[in-house]
């Protein structure tokens, strides 16, 4: 009788805890862009040696059950870095995206400060004597824009205070991590630029090249499976004769593949782009046999019908920058 009471209490506690964790595991994940009302992070400041969070597998993604909210939008990165990195490594897509964006902002900060500082000096030093009323109005608008830019820059400075080079070196792995967890912007950027986005860091981490080589193929498959026109646009360019980028280096020259992706891109094109793309297709087809062209046309048509919708040329227009979010 003396043993049974504590035993019942223990069993009861186990049942309650099990129910709690089961419920938590099945709770919906927060949206990727969720903004926390509470800056409740307890992460320690400053990882000196940022871990490579790059190799998260589908298993870890499936295991990810974190439902805790992201830190407040302007929470200093030095305080949130370790926590975001750990969560990203465990498969938390929202944390991975947030980390990559914050690191992108901080990576740009030094050059932004330098450029904005120079522009501000030039503007403030400009003589206004002799300006017409219209010129003065324009000058006032420029001054207002400068003040606004400085306010934005101040926010970034607060975000990035005491973020060291070791944290900044995690930019490319963080983009890769976010891409692997389904962040489509990160995927396009990583496929397009990979480690060359931060050549400075690449010097100390040549293994990033191998990481890129290993990860790109599954990202391409995921992008095509998800109907991502940007991936189609990147592949069209990469297979183009004489293409020089990292993705081109990876996939290699292949006239058949070039035609396939160009054809797929053309199928989704807006009417005003059609003539130019048809001309490119004709040139690409000139290097192929009729059988190769027919096969590629059939593949493009079925892939288009199965996975894609919306206009390709709006999602990936000529000259678009896949890393605009990371480069500002």
């Amino acid at each position, binding site marked *: 009788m003396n043993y049974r009471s504590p035993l019942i209490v223990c069993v009861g506690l186990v049942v309650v805890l099990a129910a709690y964790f089961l419920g938590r595991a099945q709770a919906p994940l927060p949206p990727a862009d969720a903004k926390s009302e509470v800056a409740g992070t307890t992460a320690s400041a400053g990882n000196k040696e940022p871990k490579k969070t790059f190799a998260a597998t589908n298993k870890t993604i499936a295991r990810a059950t974190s439902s805790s909210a992201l830190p407040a939008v302007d929470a200093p990165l030095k305080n949130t870095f370790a926590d975001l990195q750990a969560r990203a490594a465990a498969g938390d897509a929202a944390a991975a995206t947030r980390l990559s964006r914050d690191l992108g902002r901080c990576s740009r900060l030094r*050059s932004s*400060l330098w450029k904005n500082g120079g522009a501000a*000096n030039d503007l403030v030093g400009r003589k206004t004597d002799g300006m017409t009323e219209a010129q003065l109005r324009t000058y006032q608008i420029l001054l207002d824009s400068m003040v606004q830019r400085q306010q934005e820059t101040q926010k970034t400075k607060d975000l990035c205070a005491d973020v060291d080079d070791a944290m900044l070196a995690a930019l490319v792995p963080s983009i890769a991590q976010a891409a692997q967890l389904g962040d489509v912007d990160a995927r396009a950027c990583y496929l397009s630029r990979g480690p060359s986005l931060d050549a400075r860091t690449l010097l100390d981490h040549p*293994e990033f090249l191998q990481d890129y080589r290993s990860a790109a193929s599954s990202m391409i498959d995921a992008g095509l499976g998800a109907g991502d026109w940007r991936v189609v646009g990147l592949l069209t360019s990469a297979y183009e004769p004489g293409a020089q980028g990292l993705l081109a280096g990876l996939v290699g020259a292949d006239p058949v593949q070039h035609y396939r992706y160009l054809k797929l891109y053309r199928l989704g094109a807006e009417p005003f782009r059609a003539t130019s793309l048809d*001309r490119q297709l*004709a040139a690409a087809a000139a290097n192929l046999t009729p059988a190769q062209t027919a096969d590629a046309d059939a593949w493009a048509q079925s892939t288009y019908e199965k996975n894609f919708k919306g206009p390709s040329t709006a999602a990936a227009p000529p000259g678009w920058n896949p890393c605009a979010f990371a480069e500002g």
Partner: protein
Amino acid sequence: MIVHRRRYVFLFALAGVIGAGFFLAQSLGSKLAGRAASGETGATDTSTTGADGVPQGHAKAARSTRQRAAQALADSHIPLKDRFADLQALANAGDVTAARRLYHDLNLCTLLAGVDADNSRLADELLGTDVGKMDSGQLHDYQTQLDAIEARGTNMQKLHTLCNGTSRQMFDTLVPSLQQAAKLGDADARACYLSRGPNLDMRGFLNHPEFLEEYRSSADAMIKAGLASGDWKMVDLLRNAYQPGTQSLLAGVVGSDPLQYYRYLKLYRLGAEAQRADELDSQLKAAAAKLAPAQIADSDAWAQATLRQNFSGTSTETTVTGWDPCSFAYDLAEP
């Protein structure tokens, strides 16, 4: 339409430069071949040039080397694949002319597929142009463009002869060839290599990540050589690499250093043309704000002394805004 025509004119001009360069290279190649046959290969290593008193076997080897050099450096109508091994051997033995020729031809062949595709596209667009509403001036321009296409076709055929059969393994040596030429004192190769390094050929880079370490280990000596020889390109590359926030490879090698940034910016400013002075003075002022007065004084003195000792000409004329350190890509006349 005006924009399109400008584009055509630009691309024709580019093709013209390539074509003209090709023929100049042929003519220069003949001269080089002549020089090579008479023992003037431009080699910095003269150990095989057959000096008096050299044993018979060595003399024979030297003659063989000269013959190979002559053939390798001869007219560009000999496909690169047939000259590649000899050029590489000569470059490795310290022949700067061969090293220069090798990276130049490799780079051209790397670009050829893209140029070819652009040309085809351009020709298709031009031939598809509706000439019905053109006035006489436009028709004249159009005829000029058609003539250029025809002329370009002949030149492109010769370039194909040069590049046909160049293997992936050969292309992968573009960056090492560039590096070798830079090490041997080729100023154009040095500027390009320091600026782009292994990024010049991403495909080769993916296959050879060790190029990164080679870049790191050779950059310092190249920088010193460039400064000692009064190379304004080097000064411009350094001031950009040290500029806050730069994320290039060279920036990764030299690191962040406000003092160095000020020094090279000051040196560049001392050699600048008058019309760039205000802009550079403004940058200097901002750079000086981070330094102590003694550091500024030291840097100013260093820049003045270095200018007097090593440099001549104008910095801004050598490195106009937006210059491309790897622009030799389009200039076949250079070797």
